[in-house]
């Protein structure tokens, strides 16, 4: 059997183990695919041909010598441009970091290298991860492979689109309020936000330190589990990293794939369904619930009353932390430097650089956060928001006393049109309604494709949330749902995605992407 870019990462790993493909061949396939479609999709900000191929060659040499570093050794991956990569540009989607090449690897990146995964490049994102559409990237938007006129979600639209467009079998995303899960939902892919502290944040350029978490972006639940097993675990460089052993998520995903849900108690969150949610999204959500019930799960409705305040609390805590995090971008040590006319002081240079280097959404949140932390307003805004956060955690605790996992649609709508919500930040923020509570409470969540909405034929997502530290439940239930749905559909959802036009001169016809032209 020929390996193609449409295979899952687990299948690619098996093909490498069987010797039917080499890592160099796999990496070349993906680099060719990027060359062919990324002009239209714009998932990547930087592609590292040489580096990826060198890592692939090293992987092949190891394998020839009988050594492999991990189950995914030799399977290429894309990394969101918010994680530092030694020797590779890291911009966070911002002009202010244009040209900056970090002198060190984020722990997640170091673990990918240590596990032998060739890094294809860095993926596009909303500037400093602020946004739900990837339209706020200073380097232009990413397009949804299902409909190039639509958004791929955000902030990690680049990683999700790269995986959905078969430019990479695996990617790393980061999720502060839904930036892994919501792009997963709108591109028909899988995205996991691990328990806060489950994956090191060292080298993740912070948006909001108390909310950020890096995680897998893939096409299947098993692939996410394989990747999570590699990037997760304690890191002494991150004080908030959890110092305890984790179970194998791969095992949990394989166990779940049998589809048996007997004895599993599932809670549907009352506050995250109903009015205002797109009909097609709700229809696919209900179908998934029905399948889980048929597979033996017990489903109940659970109320989390404080969730209605989550968005408000989030938009105080996030800007507050971000306003402080982004202060370091001052032209003094790295990145953009704008020197105004005349005889400018250091402060003048800082001001001019920050004015030119940050986009409007970033400035909006810096202003919000600075205000929320100001003396005299702190208690009313930041202090209150922290109290809401505690209430949300209590809602989760109470809910998880009744059920094993909580579920909701991942996002209220399918992908909207590029530009549609650009002038309406509140409408944009509302897209993260269902994903934000997990970040505020630090609990893990996954988004699994639930099908296509009838009204627009675009993917919808099914979100599963588990108690902190119980990430394996996401894989167990997620893999079960995925396998039940795939049986219904008869093929992976992404097979229904329209073919992307290939750039002239590409040699892809011979590399097994026949589905593009069928």
């Amino acid at each position, binding site marked *: 059997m020929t390996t193609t870019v449409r295979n899952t990462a687990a299948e690619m790993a098996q093909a490498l183990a069987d010797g039917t493909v080499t890592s160099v061949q796999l990496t070349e396939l993906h680099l060719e695919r990027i060359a062919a479609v990324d002009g239209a999709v714009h998932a990547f900000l930087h592609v590292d041909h040489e580096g990826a191929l060198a890592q692939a060659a090293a992987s092949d040499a190891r394998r020839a010598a009988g050594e492999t570093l991990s189950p995914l050794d030799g399977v290429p991956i894309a990394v969101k441009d918010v*994680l*530092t990569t030694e020797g590779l540009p*890291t911009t*966070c989607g911002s002009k202010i*970091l244009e040209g*900056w090449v*970090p*002198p*060190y690897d*984020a722990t997640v990146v170091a673990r990918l290298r240590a596990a032998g995964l060739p890094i294809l490049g860095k993926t596009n994102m909303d500037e400093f991860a602020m946004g739900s559409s990837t339209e706020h990237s200073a380097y232009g938007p990413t397009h949804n492979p299902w409909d190039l006129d639509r958004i791929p979600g955000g902030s990690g639209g680049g990683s999700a689109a790269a995986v959905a467009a078969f430019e990479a079998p695996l990617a790393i995303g980061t999720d502060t309020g839904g930036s892994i899960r919501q792009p997963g939902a709108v591109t028909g892919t899988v995205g996991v936000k691990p328990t806060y502290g489950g994956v090191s*944040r*060292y*080298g*993740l*350029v*912070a948006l*909001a*330190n*108390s909310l950020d978490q890096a995680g897998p972006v893939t096409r299947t639940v098993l692939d996410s589990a394989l990747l999570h097993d590699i990037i997760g675990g304690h890191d*002494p*460089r*991150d*004080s*908030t990293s959890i110092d305890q052993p984790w179970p194998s998520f791969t095992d949990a995903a394989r166990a779940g794939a049998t589809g048996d849900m007997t004895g599993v108690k599932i809670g549907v969150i009352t506050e995250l369904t109903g009015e205002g949610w797109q009909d097609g999204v709700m229809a696919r959500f209900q179908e998934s619930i029905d399948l889980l019930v048929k597979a033996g799960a017990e489903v109940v409705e659970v109320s989390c009353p404080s969730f209605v305040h989550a968005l408000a609390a989030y938009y105080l805590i996030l800007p*507050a*932390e971000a*306003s*402080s995090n982004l*202060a*370091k*971008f*001052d032209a*003094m*040590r*790295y990145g953009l430097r704008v020197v105004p006319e005349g005889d400018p*002081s*250091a*402060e003048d240079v*800082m001001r001019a650089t920050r004015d030119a280097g940050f986009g409007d959404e970033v400035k909006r949140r810096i202003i919000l956060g*600075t205000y929320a*932390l*100001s*003396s005299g307003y*702190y208690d009313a805004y*930041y202090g209150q928001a922290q109290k809401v956060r505690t209430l949300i955690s209590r809602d989760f605790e109470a809910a998880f006393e009744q059920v094993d996992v909580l579920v909701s649609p991942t996002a209220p709508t399918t992908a909207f049109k590029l530009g549609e919500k650009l002038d309406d930040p509140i409408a944009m923020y509302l897209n993260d309604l269902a994903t934000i509570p997990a970040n505020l409470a630090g609990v893990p969540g996954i988004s699994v494709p639930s099908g296509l909405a009838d009204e627009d034929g675009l993917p919808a997502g099914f979100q599963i949330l588990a108690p902190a530290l119980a990430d394996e439940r996401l894989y167990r239930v997620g893999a079960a749902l995925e396998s039940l749905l795939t049986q219904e559909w008869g093929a992976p959802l992404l097979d229904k995605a329209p073919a992307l036009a290939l750039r002239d001169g590409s040699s892809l016809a011979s590399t097994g992407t026949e589905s593009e032209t069928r």
Partner: protein
Amino acid sequence: MTTDTLLSFEESLEKFDPAMGLEVHVELNTNSKMFCGCPTEFGAEPNTQVCPTCLGLPGAMPVVNRIAVESAMRIGLALNCEIAEWCRFARKNYFYPDMPKNFQTSQYDEPIAFDGYMDVNVPTEDGGIEVVRVEIERAHMEEDTGKSLHVGGATGRIHGAVHSLVDYNRAGIPLIEIVTRPIMGTRENAPAVAKAYVAQLRELIVALGVSDARMDQGSIRADVNLSLAPAGTGALGTRTETKNVNSLRSVERAVRFEMQRHAAILDSGGSILQETRHWHEDTGVTTSGREKSDAEDYRYFPEPDLVPVAPSREWVEELRGTLPENPTVKRARLQGEWGFSDLEMRDTIGAGAFGLVEETIEAGASPQIARKWWLSELARRANDTGTDIAELGVSPADVVAVQALIDAGSLNDKLARQVFEGLYAAEGTPAEIVAKRGLAIVSDDGALSAAVDNAIAANPDVADKIRDGKVAAAGALIGAVMKQMRGQADAGRVRELILEKLT
């Protein structure tokens, strides 16, 4: 720079009562920085002791240095503070080019140590020692900033500079900031109390072994807050904060200066501007720094990249067991051991030489010898040059070495003073200075005999008296020989030679 009008110290006290608050920053001597593994060695090439964390590179994260927390707790315990059961770091947000993250990771409303005191022994005008209890509000942990060098301006400050250089080696060095409650009611002793507090705090830090405690290198830095209120009202006036007062003597002078400056302004009906002031060691005045009247808003919030510090009570008690002896108790004990009178003790403390005398005795000198050198030659030198006695360039080990040379007959007291001069000028060790300056006593008979002959020939009357049995007259001839030998003669041997030749 404007010249401030001052009221005389006496007149300012007639009209006003001073209140002081002292903030002392102690740079810890941990091997690594507060939040990363970078070394902390003083004087390394600029920007060689840095990493992504202390440079504030995007993505880097802090990790708390456990030894720094331990040092902070030991300082807190030695100052009779409570140790927090749970406390956090906070971000103090403001833009400054030598601060890599544009926020300082510090502690705000949850300090590691709080509610303590120190009983300070203050030498008084009338020759006694008064014990003043200084209340400690808090001791908290924070990180140092980088160090800026402003090139091209007249003042060395950023204003007017052509460009600035920043050394981030210092960024992230652990600091403990110790803040007193307002010190009231000290009246004319206020400058002496301030100095004695910082001196005793420094001694305590030395005894704890948690810092190099070098004021000249900035490892202890004092900020002096001062305000005046109309005499007898017990009120608190508007304060000024004088930054970076970096010697004990300057602490005293800065308090005195600000008292006189405030008094002149208030006396003429003016009001004090709440502001930061800079101390000028050379001219002994303060000048206005940045205004603080708007009460800068640092937008403090808990540092989300760090977990709370929650020292177990077992750990606290374990550290309490490592504390050095209480300084007041220790002073009484050592006075007995050394056999010092109350007056000798007061002079020793007053000269700031208590710790130095102690170290000198520990290094092998007798108490009287240690006192002799520190309170005569060395105290005089410190006074004449306006230097802290600890910063003359003479260590307790040097004093012991000089005395050993005297005891071996290689030096006398007069020559020893020249060795100290060599030490002030950093010419080397005492032995090296003796060699370099050719200071060793001559006891070689050939050279001495010739000098004695010359002295006898030049003073025939004196020689006759000695021949007549008036041996006491030999002193005059010895003096003449010493003069010829520029002091470098063994006086005992000279006497013997004179008597051999004339009796």
